[in-house]
């Protein structure tokens, strides 16, 4: 299958995502420059991590205005899979494709570390290769990953089963100690209403080879590949 990897000025996980899907998983991919508007040749769009336009204003606040984002909205509207990682998650929230916002980390410092993620459901296009409640080892690297949504939105997300990943300990226990940024309900990744758009702060493309510490990220990409058949 064919991934489109969106590149904004300031994006830096683009090459890592390409290495994961091409180099490790043997799929095709192409970079999509932020000025482009045609995504018709792709099966899945990745919005990678980085600091789009420097993120000096607010993470993702400028990227949402890029020409490519109109095309991403259209692509998502057709029910095709979109995954936003780190800055990509921030952009999806800013663009209104996902609810809520990512605030500065509770402790106000940047954090790069391994986290454990509990897979809350195994029937999403992004998690079909996982067992329900499976704990994945995936690292985070961000200064603004503290997910927040108002009480009503949060209640909807929870009741509709749209929280896909939660920070937990190695045993799958969700607690404050395993939360790297202070996000509400230990949220690490959420789905849109239709279930075809995922935003997550952790970087699955950094955990695709045992040599780098974990290859659990492959489960997420493999699930997408299965979904796109």
């Amino acid at each position, binding site marked *: 299958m064919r991934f489109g990897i969106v590149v904004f*000025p*300031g994006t*830096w*996980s683009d*090459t*890592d995502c390409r*290495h*994961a899907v091409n*180099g490790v998983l043997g799929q095709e991919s192409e970079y999509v420059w932020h000025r482009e508007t045609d995504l018709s040749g792709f099966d899945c769009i990745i919005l990678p*991590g*980085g*600091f789009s*336009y*420097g*993120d*000096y204003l607010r993470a993702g606040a400028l990227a949402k205005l890029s020409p490519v984002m109109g095309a991403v909205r259209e692509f998502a509207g057709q029910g095709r899979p979109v995954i936003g990682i780190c800055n990509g998650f921030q952009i999806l929230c800013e663009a209104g494709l996902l609810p809520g916002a990512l605030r500065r980390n509770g402790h106000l*410092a*940047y*954090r*790069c*570390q391994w986290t454990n993620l509990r897979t809350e459901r195994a029937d999403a296009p992004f998690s079909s290769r996982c067992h329900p409640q499976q704990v994945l080892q995936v*690292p985070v*690297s961000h*200064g603004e990953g503290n997910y927040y949504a108002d009480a009503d939105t949060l209640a909807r997300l929870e009741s509709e089963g749209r929280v896909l990943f939660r920070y937990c300990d190695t045993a799958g226990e969700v607690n404050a100690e395993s939360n790297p940024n202070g996000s509400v309900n230990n949220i690490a990744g959420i789905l849109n209403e239709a279930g075809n758009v995922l935003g997550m702060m952790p*970087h699955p*493309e*950094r955990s*695709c*080879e045992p*040599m*780098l510490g974990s290859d659990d990220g492959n489960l997420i990409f493999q699930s997408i590949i299965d979904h796109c058949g």
Partner: protein
Amino acid sequence: MTVSQETLDQIALSRAEYEMIVDRLDREPNPLELGMFGALWSEHCGYKHSRPLLGLFPSASPRVLSRTGAENAGAIDIGDGWAVVFKVESHNHPSAVEPRQGAATGVGGIVRDILAMGARPMALLNSLRFGPLDDPHNRYLMQGVVEGISWYGNCIGVPDVGGEIGFNPSYSQNPLVNAMCVGLVESDRIATAAAGNAEDVLLLVGAETGRDGIHGASGLASRTFEEETELRPTVQVGNPFLEKVLIESCLQALATGGVSAIQDLGAAGLTSSAVEAVARGGRGLELDLSQVHRREEGMAAYEVMLSESQERMLLVVPPANVPQVKTVFDRWDVPCREIGRVSQEPVARISDGPELLADLPIVELAGAPQYRLEGSPSPDYEERQTLTMQEIPTPSQGADDILLRLLAAPNIASKGSVYRQYDHQVQTNTVVGPGSDAALLRIKGTGKAIALAIDGNSRYCYLDPYAGGQIAVAEVCRNLSCSGAEPLALTDCLNFGNPERPEIYYQLEQCIRGMARACRVLGVPVVSGNVSLYNESQGQAIYPTPIVGGLGLLEDVNRHAAAGFGGEGLVVALLGSEIGRYRAADLAGSEYLDLVHGLVRGRPAIDLRREKQVQELCRHAIAGGIVASAHDCADGGLAVALAESSILCGVGFQGNDLIARLSTSWDAALFGERQSRIVVSLAPAQWPELERLAARMRVAVAQLGVTGGDKFQIPGHVDLPLDTLADAWNNGLERALGG
């Protein structure tokens, strides 16, 4: 002579140097011309006091692809068509004045040095020094510096994979911020900074030129400073987003094949960048400053030429290729202007529109005078080196308490709370990240990895600069060897006080001689570096601090080791296990002596041939799959090394009786910092193999105990729960920062 002393002070030239300029030009320079001389003849750009000494370093090996000093960084052939480019540079004075921007722009500057070699920056490391953390100003400096590195490095997508942080009162007003960058480039595509073709166009790309950083090279980096607040405007302000797009756009421009040379704009801005580029190519230049894109109106030519605005590069492009190169920068929305051209005649002609403002021979501009000074040791030098048994009382605390104090001391405690603020994984090559002896990065598309480390112990250099210099080189090579990698080459940053003082020049010369000797014995050239002198405030110099960055190569990435023990039920052994005979010698210059007895005394020593053998044994043992971990025995001595390996693995250690008998007293055995020792762990079945290998390589090895359980024990001396040790080591730095 019409020039005032005030003007000369501003650009840090002496009256004699001014007269030399007049003599060479056969006329008086105008203010712009004088400013250009001041910048290029500064210590920072001209290496007036250090160049003759730097020639002592060996700089060649079959793998070296660059000529040291001729380009912006050293390039090393790692095979498979790839070269690794690396360099370390200081940003001490700016960080003292404004820690966040000073450190951030230090990162930005070294990244552009690597970019100027045509390489993609793939790793950052840094070596930091601060005064004691009980002083709130030092805490402010450290927090600012760490924030600056984190902010800038994270934004540009280059992983910060390692480094070290040290504390000593001599750095209280004068912190050290040394940043190292490592890049990867196809070995036949290394770019040059030599502009050799007349008529080539000079393209200035990146940020607008503003009024920031004027006199950074001459005023800030080349003299001691007492009045920090007045110097704040000389510190530059960074824009990491622009740096990121500058990296991408410059690499794409180079990939078109249409660029003949590329140079970064660093200290002394456009002046040094353009003049050095054409000086390397034996050519001259014509610049039209009216074409320079500026941040503000009304800037004088002097300001444009000496601005140190960040995130700018100079490209030298044949006229026919200019449109193609400009297209790349347009795509990235990066400003790109034609500001002049390379000329046949080796003269710098600077104009602003039609008006000629400066007309200077390149050979004079680039020919800063060289000074060979006479050094002499300071009067108390011998007293420092003398240390007798009688002066070191038997400690009133037991080994348990001392070990916990050492583990929690900011010099030794884990720096994890700092490193987790740096992205150390982006680019997905980090096999071993910060916190081990060396970082390990795989090279995609090959089975290889490079090892990176940076190190320096100023206390040893203060006590004996010659031995300290040797140890600095030996230790960084040992760090690389502990990962299994063969040391290939070094870069260095020499941080010293005012070299015009005999005792400082003595330190500088002795240190360099010691480093050079170690380089020759260990077979590693120095391929790039930087000198930071005048690190003084209120008449007090910092400890002499050579910081050495090392590059190693691992042929098989899967055959590597890290510092934490390999698991439970392993034998722990010491490579280089000779028994010390003198307590005072074994304790010389140790962290223990300083922390527990308040003594910075003694004479550190190293036997370089033994060092070489121990490192070779370690590498063989890792390559042969004999040992499961390797950790350098350094600050805090053997007990600290064992404790760190235990904590990193999360497995206890039961030592044997030999440990406390490795010197004539238990404190020297546990906490002495004798060189050339490495702690390893291995499966019991592998022990005979290690013994055989060690015998063949003539290195003494001995078993020190076994791993397992949840206690850390050295019979008769230490018996502590592993959790207690881990708490001291893991949280020591944060507690010290808490004030």
